Each structure stands twice: as C-alpha cells, then as structure tokens.
C-alpha cells in the first residue's frame, strides 16, 4: 500500500531507509561507491593502455599531418613569401632571396637546415643537395644582390618549382603524406595529380595486402574447420594428442617457424628434394615455392592456423551431437543435416577466427619479409622501411593510419553483416 502511494505521489512521501535517507539516494550512493571501486581496480590497466597504446597511436596519427619543419626553420623566407603570387610566373623578389640567405646562415649554424632539406626532398628529389650545398657556400655571401648570387650557386633557385614548393609546404599541417600514401602529389600549381606511372606503388600494395590476407583467411577456414571438427568429436585421448599437435607450433617462436619453412620450401629444400626423388619433377624443373606469393601464403597460413582452430573448436565443443542425429532421424541426408544444422551453429566461432586471422595477417611483417621475395611482401614491410631506413615518419604514419582505418572499416562491415555480438572467442 505504502509502495503504491509512493509510486503515484513520490514527491510527498519518498521511501526511506532505516536511517532516514531516501531509499533512492541511498541506493545511488551504494552504486556509485561500487562503480568507483570497479573503476579504481581497472585504473592501472587504463593508465597502462593510455600511456603505451593510445598516446603513441595518437602521436603517430598526428605525425601524418604535422609539418612544422619548414615554417619553423626558415621563418623569414616563409614570411617574405606570403606576398608572392605563385601563379604569377615570376620569381620572388630580392627581399625573399635575402631572407632565405639569412635563414640558411642561421640554419647552418644551428644545424637545422638539414631538416628542411630532407623534408623538402620528400616532395622533389634534389632539394636535399640544393639546400646543403647552398648552405656550405652561402657563408661567404655578405651582401646583395642575393638573387643573382643564389642562382649562380645553384640554378634551381631560379626555378619557379622550388619556390612554389617552399610556399606550399610552409603551413603547419600538410596533406602531402596522405597524397603520397595514395600515389598522388601536388603539381606546381597546387592541384592534386597522380604520381607518374613508374612511381605508383602504395595503392597496389594495399590491394595486394588485402587480397593475400583474404586468401590466407580462406585457407585457414578450409584447413582449420576439419581439424577443429576432429578435435571436438574424437575420443578424448586422441583429441588431446591432436590438440598438442595444434598447440606445439603455436608456442614455437615465429622466427623459428618461418626459418623452418625456408628450409622446407627452397629449391634445394626438403619438398623439392622429395619430389625429385619420387620422380614427379625433374632436377632442372624444381619448383619455386619460396621468395614469392606462394611462400608467404604457405608460411602465414601455417602460422595463423591455430587462431582459426581454437575458436572453432571451442564453439564446436558446445554443439550437442544429438542435434545432428535428430536431423538425420527426421529424414535429412548427412550433407543436408551438416549444412542446415551443424554449420550454422559454428558460425560464431568461424566469425571470431576469421576476424582474428584477417586482422593479424593484414599487419604481418616478419614472415612476408623473409619468405615473400618481391611478390609476397605486404604494406607493413614498406611502413617498417620508412620508419627505420628512410626516416620518413610522416609517410609511415600516413600509411599506418590508412591501414588502421581499413581494418576499422572492415570491422564495421563485419559487424553489420554478421553482428559482433555473435562472435565467440572461446
């Protein structure tokens, strides 16, 4: 009765706890305390994730558009160039040249001019030596006219292209890295155009990475499904043995497995030797199984197989065998019973396996580098190259962000098509 009044007329007669606090408030407080406790418990993890995961990724993402080098290290030139009309067809005036000479002199002393040289060289080959050789000779240049003097040092200073580039890349942010990542660039007028045919590579590599990752995922389903089925249905002692066979390579170092595949697949390797011995192929006609696409497909499928088998197995384990028997007794053929009854129940495991294998393989790096030759390498190999060798971190970041976006997009598509809630990892 009291509850009834409270329900219809809460404002006048709220429910009270024993110590006189409204029940609602008291419950809320208890809940808040619980939440705070839970939050505090996960706090170390959150901090960890933020410091070692979120922050570095955000930093890398920022680098793909960040472009402070030019504006920071040749500021006078950039300021003087503000009034110059890049489309006028005329070179900047003496004032700009004088500013550049001063900037380069200071940059040489502070050793910052090399940074500008390298940054601009990403856009036009030759900028690196232009700036560095000018820096060496400009020290002796004390009075004007600087325009003639600079053009005498290097004729590129008399070309519009050079100045258009400096003006274009003087902003705080740039789209150049993303353009480069999709095989495009700015032309001299500032329009976006495609890279020359022979330099187009990254879109092709993205395509290849996707296609090969898909193939690997399909191969993993084809090979993993029967094994998972056996694991789930065999008597326990055989299943345990089989499980060890699945897990043993899983626990072995990636590098060891990759190197083992090299020994197996190479032309003088185990498989070719065997085929020659049996007489299927001649000694001259040994198969090229490695340092190409085939090598990457075989080695990566093997390495990623457990990630397909384990979720499939954990789902199959929960499917009662009586369902299949029921379907059979109701008149379905073996094949029909399998397709209509068994297969749909394994989908959640297959979905989990698919997404795991696909996402892992899209970022794979060491295996394609070792066995992929030229036709079996991934975009990640080129990202690594830009991080460690060319030190073009802007381009590496842009490529990385695009890869991340691609994975997220696929994940969303997957979510729409299959539903992420249906996924079972184990």
């Amino acid at each position, binding site marked *: 009765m009291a509850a009834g009044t409270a329900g219809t007329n809460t404002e006048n007669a709220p429910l009270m706890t024993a110590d006189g606090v409204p029940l609602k408030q008291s419950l809320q407080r208890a809940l808040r305390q619980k939440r705070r406790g839970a939050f505090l418990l996960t706090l170390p993890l959150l901090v960890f994730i933020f410091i070692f995961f979120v922050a570095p990724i955000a930093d890398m993402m920022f680098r793909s558009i960040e472009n402070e080098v030019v504006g920071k290290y040749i500021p006078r030139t950039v300021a003087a160039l503000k009034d110059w009309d890049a489309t006028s067809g005329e070179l900047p005036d003496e004032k700009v040249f004088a500013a550049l000479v001063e900037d380069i002199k200071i940059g040489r002393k502070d050793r910052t001019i090399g940074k500008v040289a390298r940054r601009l060289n990403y856009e036009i080959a030759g900028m*690196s030596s232009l700036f560095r050789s000018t820096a060496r000779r400009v020290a002796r240049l004390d009075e004007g006219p600087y325009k003639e003097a600079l053009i005498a040092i290097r004729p590129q200073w008399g070309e519009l292209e050079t100045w258009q580039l400096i003006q274009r890349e003087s902003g705080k942010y740039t789209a150049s890295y993303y353009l480069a990542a999709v095989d495009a660039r700015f032309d001299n007028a500032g329009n976006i155009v495609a890279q020359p045919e022979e330099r187009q590579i990254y879109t*092709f590599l993205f395509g290849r990475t996707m296609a090969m990752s898909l193939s690997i995922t399909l191969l993993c389903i084809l090979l993993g499904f029967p094994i998972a089925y056996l694991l789930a249905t065999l008597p326990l002692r055989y299943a345990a043995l089989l499980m060890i066979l699945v897990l043993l390579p899983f626990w072995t170092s990636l590098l060891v497995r990759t190197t083992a595949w090299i020994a197996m697949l190479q032309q003088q390797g185990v498989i070719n030797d065997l085929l020659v011995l049996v007489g299927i192929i001649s000694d001259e006609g040994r198969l090229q199984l490695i340092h190409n696409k085939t090598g990457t497909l075989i080695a990566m499928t093997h390495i990623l197989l457990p990630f397909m088998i384990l979720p499939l197995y954990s789902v199959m384990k929960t499917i009662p065998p009586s369902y299949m028997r029921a379907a059979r007794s109701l008149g379905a053929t073996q094949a029909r019973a399998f397709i209509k009854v068994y297969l749909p129940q394994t989908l959640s495991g297959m979905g989990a396996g698919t997404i795991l294998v696909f996402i892992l393989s899209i970022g794979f790096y060491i295996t394609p580098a070792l066995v992929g030759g030229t036709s079996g390498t991934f975009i990640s190999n080129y990202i690594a*190259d830009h991080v460690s060798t060319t030190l073009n971190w802007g381009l590496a970041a842009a490529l990385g962000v695009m890869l991340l976006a691609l994975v997220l997009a696929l994940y969303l598509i997957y979510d729409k098509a299959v539903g992420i809630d249906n996924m079972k990892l184990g």
Partner: protein
Amino acid sequence: MKKLLKSGSALSALAAAGIIAAGVTATSPVSAQTTLTIVSWGGAYSKSQQNAYHDPYMKLNPGIKIINDDSAAEGLAKLRAQVEAKNVTWDLVDMVAASAITACDDGLVETIDPDRDLAPAPDGTPASKDFLEGTLTPGGTNCFIPQIVYSTTFGYRIDKVKTKPTSVCDVFDLKKIPGKRALEKAPIGNIEWALLCSGVPQKDLYKVMSTKEGIDKAFKKLDTIKSSVIWWTKGAQTPQLLADGEVVMGSTYNGRLFSLIEEKKQPVAMLWDYQVFDLDGWVIPKGGKNLAEVKKFVRFATDTQRLADQAKYISYGPARKSSAPLVGKHATLGIDMAPHMPTNPKNAKTTILFNYEWWADNRASLDERFNAWLAKK
C-alpha cells in the same frame, strides 16, 4: 583510524624510499664506474670491435665499462626516438655513411673536428689527412668517424658455374652463367652496375643517373635478369643462399663472403670486379650523458693501431692510410689478411665509390620506383 593507518603506511613507504635513496647515493661514489653503451651490428662484427677496441680500452681504464647493444640495424629510428624524447641512453652508435648523413642532417649527432677529436697518425700526420679521402665528410656532413671500408661484391659457386665469371657484367649474362643470382633489394649499387654493363663509362655514371633516360636504361638492364634474381635484405642471406646452392652467384658484404670461404670452407670464390665501396663508422649521439668519456674512447678506438687490429678479426679495410701496413694475420685462422682486404690493390683494380650526395637526393624517389618495379611483374 583507517586514515591514520593509511598515512602511517605512506610515511613508512617514504622512509623506505629515503633509505633506498640514501643507499644509492652512498654506494655510487664507491663504484665510480662509467658505463658506455655502444651500439653496433652484433655477430662477428661486434666481436671484432670487442677484441680490437673495447677489451683493450677497458683494460687501460678500469673505471669504464662498455656495454654492447646490437640494434644498429634500427639505429637511425631508435636514435631519433631517443633524441626526440630527450632521453638519450646510447653513447656511441655504429652506422653506415648514408645513415650518418641523415643523422647529421637531422641534428641527432655531434659534429666532429677531426684534428681536435681524433688521434694523429704515428708519424704525426693529422687525422684529417690520414683518413682516406672524403671518408670524414660523406655527403658534405661532418659528424661521421669512419672505421672501415667495406665493399658489396659478388661471390659465386665454383662447382655450379660452367665458365668462371670474370666481370661484374656476367651477372647480367644469363647465357654465360645460367641460374639464380642474389642481389640486394635496393636500387643503390644495382643501378650503378646495370649502367656500367649497359656501356656507360664509369666517369659519367652519376651524370647519366641524373637523367630519366639513364634510370630507364638501368631498369631495362635489370629487366633482363629480373626473373632470375632472389632479392636479399640482410647481409647473411646471400652466404646462406650460396651455401644451400639456391643461387650460383650473389652480392653481399665482402666480410660475409670471407667468412663463408675461409671459415666455413664453402666452394665459393670472390669476384672483386667493380666492388662497391662503402663506409662504416661511429657517430656520437647528441645529448648523451657521457660525452667527454665517449670522445676519449673514440680517440682511442680509431687510432692507427686499433683500426689495424680490427682487421685481424674481420676482413674489412681500415679507414686510415697509416693502418694498412700494420694489417697482419687473422687471429684464429692464421692466414694473411691483406689479400682479403677490399682495399688491397689486387682486389681494387675496378671499384665504384658511392656519390653520397647524389643518393641523399634521389634515394627516396628511386626507392619508390624500384619497389614499384619489383612489385609489378
């Protein structure tokens, strides 16, 4: 009560920290040891440095402890990360000249004044005159302290070729030498060889390479052997491929071939023709914590005797002229090392010297073109 307990434990924690801190300050003057972290390539190369530089230096200076870090392959990227984070933990880094140019341009490393920072030759020749021409200033930079001259050159399987290769152009001749060959997965070096074998005279190489037609010509030459090439990325790959019989010939660093031939006794011979010279040496990271100590070490480790000593352990040529006559026998094999040096006149009849400045300009764009060429059939 709870609060009191809490503050109590906080206090004791503070006290404990204090004790630890006191312990640290108390013990550090006693040990008085400076630890230098030196980054190099690992393997046989680091061992040669350990034997020739590190061990003798630590013996002379008991207060110095040298720790090896084998991450030179990622040296440039890691160094940049350290400098940007303002937490430089490395004291000295081993780099090839091209990387040193990038590091110097980016202001990641200290500049060097050779005559002030490096020891003169025993006869008093200043360092700037004693090091081989141009080796102290690759690409016009002044941060690099060269140790060795190494070369990228070819080795071939004696038992798998019908006619012995005599010229680097035999690499491009599938009729004379059929079979697979290993080449580095980078344009640098390969472009030079391809053009030389397309009839471009050596003195015009970089002039021709500066034109689009020149580069087209080089790729056209590489096209003729593309299907017979296995591309390597690590120096250890070619020796392995040669030993397994996967390739009949292949390019790699001359020291790797030396070890394959003389230490592992494989049926492989050297083809020194048009070997490509390159330099490897030290750079001193900017903002390192032991700058003064490192400079002392570098002065010691790059003097005439030390550079000659390194050649006892690995077949790379010392970068000082005054070291060459002091090169002796291999430390364990007991063979004369001089004939195995890339700088030996017998081996160095025809050589290519990189134009570092040209490559600093064109590396990025040419890498892209090379990778596009590789990726597409």
